[in-house]
């Protein structure tokens, strides 16, 4: 009997990514951020989330997708990772998908190197690949 997992999915450009729903604290719209000088390009800033200060990570930057995408404001996927609360800035939010372990495959070699580190594997869905994000790697200090 194949096991099913639920993933919260989002788009970076046209690529679909997902994180286990258990890791996701909330999904909210664009929030005003305070920039952190000297922090590196992936750190877009700090968000005040109901009194908690959350670091906002530009996931496109992290994953290595060029910023020639749409200029609209990113959405926040707030995740818990290793005791930290971090917000991933993504282009668009997808649906919560239930995926079957049977469809899981290790990272395809067609994915560029920087992305491969940040991705645990991929689920084959109808017509597209859903990349499972390695949130710990993604939120590790660079």
């Amino acid at each position, binding site marked *: 009997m194949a096991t099913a997992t639920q993933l919260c999915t989002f788009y970076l450009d046209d690529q679909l990514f997902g994180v286990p729903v258990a890791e996701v604290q909330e999904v909210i719209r664009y929030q005003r951020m305070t920039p952190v*000088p*000297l922090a590196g390009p992936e*750190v877009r800033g*700090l968000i005040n989330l109901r009194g908690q200060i959350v*670091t906002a990570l530009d996931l496109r930057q992290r994953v290595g997708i060029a910023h020639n995408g749409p200029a609209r404001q990113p959405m926040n996927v707030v995740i818990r990772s290793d005791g*930290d609360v*971090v917000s991933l800035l993504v282009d668009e939010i997808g649906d919560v998908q239930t995926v079957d372990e049977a469809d899981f495959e290790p990272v395809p070699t067609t994915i560029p190197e920087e992305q491969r580190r940040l991705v645990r594997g991929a689920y084959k869905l109808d017509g597209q690949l859903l990349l499972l994000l390695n949130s710990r790697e993604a939120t*590790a*200090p660079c």
Partner: protein
Amino acid sequence: MDDLQGLVKDFLVESHENLDRLDDELVKLEHEPESPERLASIFRTIHTIKGTSGFFGFGTLQSVTHAGESLLSRLRDGELRLQPDMTTALLALVDAVRDMLAHIEEKGSEGEEKYEALVVRLTELQQARNAASEAKKREEASAADSQDAAAEAAMCWSTSSARDCASADLIEGGSAGAEAAAAERAALETEAGEATGPQVADAQMGDSKPPAESHRKMRSEAAEPDAAATGTAALPDARPAGVPATAEAHSDLEADPEAATAALPPSVEEPLAESASPNRISRLIPAADRTIRVDVALLDQLMNRVGELVLARNQILQFSAQSNDPALVSTTQRLNLITSELQEGVMKTRMQPIGNVWSRFPRLVRDLSLQLKKQIRLEMTGKETELDKTIVEAIKDPLTHIVRNAIDHGLETPEQREARNKPVEGSLILRAFHEGGQVIIEIKDDGAGLNTERIRKKAVDRGIISVEQSLRISDREAAQLIFEPGFSTAETVTNVSGRGVGMDVVKNNIEKIGGSVEIQTTPGKGTTIRIKIPLTLAIIPALIVTLNDDRFAIPQVSLSELVRLEPNAGKGIEFLQGTPVYRLRNRLLPIVDLGTQLELPSALECCRKEGRAINIVVLRADDREFGLVVDAINDTEEIVVKPLSRMLKSLPIYAGATIMGDGDVALILDVLGLAQKSKILLEHRHGAACPSVEDSSDDDQSQGSLLIVSLGSRRYALPLQSVARLEELRSGTVEFAGMQEVVQYRGSILPILRLDAVLGVPTFLAPEDRDRVPMVVVQAAGKSIGILVEQINDIVSVPAETIDASQRDVTTASTVIHDRVTDILNLTQLAGYVSAC
């Protein structure tokens, strides 16, 4: 079974506290061996542990403490006099108990070690005779027994478990003696725990006398009543007729503890009238009822809530500031007051006296001084100085290491000290006090001091600094080198200290909690280590500044002053080789541009371009001051410090972040990190050492610093205060402006003087013949001058008076420094040699 676990846990916690206190008391006892109060107190502590361990079935623990108790009993009764070997054995007992407790904590059992040797030793020591009369001993013995019983009853009373008290009491038959003893015991116990069960069981195990017998004794030999005690806790008492009630009481206990207790107090008065005990139990105010044990996690939660409240209050303050509604304004003020008081109160709950950490030192000093055969006197002032609990935890190890170092390496042996005409007994003084929002802890010894020469050499050997740097840096900076990783000048790595991993870890640990450590030493005289720690980490007053439309917070504790430079004011920011400085009351203040540091538009530039006033925030890091230029200065606020996430923690210039009144996030600057990044402070003291511009602000105001240079074999000195930089002039860069030799230096023209030419001494190698010539850039008579010398040697401290005198007189003053005759140059006079350009 859970109950039992809980009881064991309580027993462990309580016993640890007691053991710590025992260490301290035993050491103190050595100094006053006759003190009956101390002996009695120590006896009771061991007695408790013995009793409780019996209940839990910890046989070894029980037998070991029993041996100790017997010895103590004889000491307390005056049959024996305390000798150092007894103290050592008793301290060994404490250690053994600690080990066993640790084992119990981890594994649930006592462990294999039987400590037979220790038990034998303790028993042996009991046999020693002394001159006290036998009769006296016998008389006191019976009183002691009654005290035992009293102690027994008293012990359990300190808890809130009335039923146990009542029963133990009734069994023991303790009465008035119990009262006074109860008072004392209560004072010793600070917790209302459930460890009383053991006391009851102990009594039941027949460790003490049969109830009736001791009971009778109690009636006739009541101890002196303690007036204070009477008034407090409802005391256990034993009705004379209470013995038959024992069995009854036992069965009743579970059902009706209150009634049993309530019935007791009145009869206490009866035996009070009699007082016969020769051993007075000291009057200690029962503290049990005034304290309560709280889980630290709960306090943390409270602190967080209060932090949130502070933020919300800040927001409301903002709204109310914009409102005209008087009701709102006055209510907000009230809210403001209450929040501040609440905040203070909650912070106090976490405060612990530093004495808690220091309590281990008397024993440590005693043990070490015996081991190393040194005589050391320990003085501790300011034990009651309070610190947040987390800080107390964090400095335990660093302080211990520093103390060990001082004893091991700092203080000399009695023979060495005598040879140096010092008192044979070395002194180690610990001081703690509050000052300016910080706690200062000083550890001062009058030992050999640090050998800065050896430190410089060692640092060069270890590759920590270069040879030149080792010559340029001041003694003070040289001393700080010991905090570098991998540094140890101890010739032999002893067990006690000197493995070379100590001081840098100490510094790290202290800086981790936001503190700083510095060291001052005088060779031959001693060393002082000073630790500064901020009082609180969570909610701090801060200055809010703006840069590039973003707000930043600067902790007020690092703030010295604010300076505002109007755009067209006469004095402005000057540049020395591209580095901005500002002359603040005759001191050169290095200027740091926050914009540049953060890789944002330069604040100085912006102000200049827009013709705005320049705002300088004068900050202090590690005793160096520098000025931070920002766009605007807002106001001071109390902010809640929130830690940054993992990703950002490694950035040294940020200490955290906070939420402003309007909900925006602002970063909190780490002043120390900023100073290091902008090279005001040398990161790990690497890099070219620039003589600190305000080295004159040494802690000891009567000292000043001189830079020593040489021409051939002649030595000259310049007041370090006037020295801006040490440079090397490359050949071929000397040009002429009119008749004056100059060089292009940091964007401006610097007149240079050849010292040999000026002083008329034989010329050393001309600049043209050497690749690089050392040049000292000084400030004299309002201008910068470069002085060419043959060699830059050293920086030394001399009495300030010497420097002052040299600058006043027309002729140069001479003095002897490091066994060489040295002329101190009069800079004003030198400046006169610069022809007007």
